[in-house]
């Protein structure tokens, strides 16, 4: 279907919707003064990113993203917000004298990135691929598990060791020092 002379597919519409929500929520994460709301908006951003993963044909990753990021990390952050009693802290950092300055720097960096990304010729641009037909292999759960347990088994095991260390380490850090112990 053509709208304003452009050919538009449903997936593109879905992309625009999801990424719009994601980016607006992300802006909220950094701009909303109430830190609890910011954390909830982070959850929304992460769900949006999961949606983008689905559009990139990575549904397993989307589920993992929701389970770990939304289900675990966001919950943890919210609990930490409560424990540190800083929910209603209003206002921005005074370290950089004007937040506009920071926004400007980030904006210029984004302009750089955007110009580079949009100007580059991506050899596998879908507009080249679509004519040739889909070029998909089994990028599914099985492929991921095979990759994790065969070529990437060493980093995989390393990650488990890391998680154990984090488990112990964060308990040690956060534990209250009992006097006399």
């Amino acid at each position, binding site marked *: 279907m053509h709208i304003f002379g452009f050919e538009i597919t449903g997936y593109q519409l879905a992309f625009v919707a999801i990424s719009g929500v994601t980016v607006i929520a992300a802006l909220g994460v950094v701009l909303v003064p109430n830190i609890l709301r910011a954390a909830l908006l982070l959850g929304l951003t992460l769900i949006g990113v999961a949606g983008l993963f689905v559009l990139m044909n990575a549904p397993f990753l989307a589920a993992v993203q929701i389970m770990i990021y939304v289900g675990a990390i966001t919950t*943890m952050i919210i609990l930490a917000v409560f424990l540190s009693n800083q929910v209603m802290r209003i206002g921005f950092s005074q370290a950089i004298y004007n937040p506009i300055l920071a926004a400007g720097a*980030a904006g210029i960096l*984004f302009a750089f990135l955007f110009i580079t990304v949009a100007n580059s010729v991506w050899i596998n641009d879908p507009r080249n*691929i679509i004519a040739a037909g889909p070029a998909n292999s089994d990028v599914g759960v099985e492929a991921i598990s095979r990759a994790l347990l065969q070529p990437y088994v060493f980093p995989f095991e390393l990650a488990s060791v890391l998680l154990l260390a984090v488990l112990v380490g964060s308990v040690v850090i956060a534990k209250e020092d009992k006097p006399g112990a």
Partner: protein
Amino acid sequence: MHSAYGIPIWWFLTVGAMLFCIGLMGMMIRRSAVGMLLSIELMLNAANINLVAFGSYLKTPVIAGQIFTIFVITLAAAEAAVGLAIVINIYRLEQHIDADKITAMKL
């Protein structure tokens, strides 16, 4: 199902760049340490989007993009756990978590 869905890859990359720059901005303007952690998560997600996009958009898609993303998520969980533990500890010591005022490392 094909990997393209008619969406050019640079759309994804642009969203990634946006999230990254927003996260960067958050790092600079957020006052509380938890807020900075949130911004870090944003930047990590931006990187994840790029990784998955590059993995999926190759002529023969490679799984490495998704694998790296899984590792990034793992590390993000680890980082959040340790970071929040540190935040709670700092709160216990200083009764606030203003990153502006935590300058014990200052020369």
